[in-house]
């Protein structure tokens, strides 16, 4: 047995493994409350939180079009997932101005920048992505 009593895997490591399988992982507190980002300790109980996989469906909570130098402007958003947690991501779209608060979105997975692993990126629900 490892002298480390903690898991053999970091929370982010496990999150990435789910991503590689096309799954958006999150956690739940003992009370059932959704928790994101994944942690070793549940802020509610102090215990290890339970892992779960999201439906990947949610709505835009807040949105901004980011104008990075030498890049096409892109949509950065906070997404409220239907299970009750919030995360930062992008919304891939050809019409950035059409993405507003409340827009329904669905998760997909792609590498955002070269050399990065596949990560959750959203598109408008029902759109081809």
């Amino acid at each position: 047995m490892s002298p480390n009593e903690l898991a053999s895997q970091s929370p982010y490591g496990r999150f990435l493994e789910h991503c590689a399988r096309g799954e958006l992982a999150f956690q739940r507190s003992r009370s059932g409350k959704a928790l994101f980002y994944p942690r070793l300790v549940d802020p509610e109980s102090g215990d290890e939180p339970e892992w779960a996989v999201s439906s990947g469906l949610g709505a835009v909570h807040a949105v901004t079009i980011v104008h990075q130098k030498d890049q096409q402007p892109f949509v950065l958003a906070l997404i409220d997932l239907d299970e009750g947690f919030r995360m930062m991501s992008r919304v891939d779209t050809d019409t950035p101005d059409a993405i507003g608060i409340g827009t329904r979105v669905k998760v997909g997975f792609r590498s955002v920048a070269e050399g990065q692993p596949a990560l959750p990126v959203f598109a408008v629900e029902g759109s081809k992505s």
Partner: protein
Amino acid sequence: MTTLKRGGVAIVGAAESDLGRVPDHTTPIDLMAQAVGRALKQSGLTLKDVDGLFAATSQVRMASLALAEYLGVKPKYFDGTNIGGSSFMTHLAHAHAAIEAGLCSVAVIAYGSTQRSVSRAAASPREHNAYETPYQPILPTSAYALATMRHMHQYGTTREQLAEVAVAARQWALLNPKAWEREPLTIDQVIGARMISSPLTVRDCCLVTDGGGALVVVSAARARDLDVRPVYVLGHGEAIGHNSISNMEDLTVTAAAQSGPRAFAMAGLKPSEIDVTILYDAFTITPILFLEDLGYCAKGEGGAFVSGGRIAPGGSFALNTNGGGLSYCHPGMYGMLGMIEAVDQLRGAAGKRQVKDAHRAVVHGNGGVLSSQCTVVFGSADLL
């Protein structure tokens, strides 16, 4: 409830370092030391008297050690808390506690930054956040843009109202000979400026300058023995909301809603009694949020509050009278400079921008991405 004494400590020295763009190879500690020298000179105290040292900057991890060495000070009590731009309000609250507990008697609080000289990227590299960094937000701007979008959505706050904050700051800056910006600014210019992270243009964002400052803090009893006009610390409150914007519970309510009431309760004052208000204007949305959270107006009414020239020179509400982080100076952790302005106003030393009969001032500091919130209430001697 705090057991610290309202008015138990006083500011007896408050000075800026050189600001704007300092000579090449100047260090943050050079600027801290310069400001400490100037602030001590005002108080009539010397480095030999200093036994408490508080310092922070994004460029030096162990700033209190570096400053102690530079100044040849061996403090009995020191604190290098770094929670971003509100760090120095926190230092003041901690200095108050330390002085009342007898842990030190002359506390110096210092800040210095050369972020314009060395570039923002070099001066404050952002920590990697596995759940945000890959999506390439422009931080901190995109975080404040997201909060702005929520405020506009929930409360109907307009682009023009946000621009009024920048225009008023510029008008105040034109009265401040130390201000970085020297040209007038219009609402149309703010809205039409280069977009950074919608809806925020470059004119909604604080400046990138060099600069620093220092405060000298002693007990009220000691302050009365010095040949100065002390400015008393009537109240303070500290609160932390979150670290990353993804984890801010309500993007339209900051932890100022906790720090403010704590500070006002300790001071025994309410917002309507304040003569000068300095609210960290990292972005045009922030004074609007803090006016609401500190209780100057109801939630959602901040946009209307700042409209119609109310917060500009000649308006009915004296806000950010030095020109703020938007137009006067913003070395990255602006809270120190906000406190110096409040002290100058209460000492009657604010020149052409002096607010008449200023006896009570509030300074509110913000750090991170609306993350740490610290409020200080200052008063002149007649408030004791």
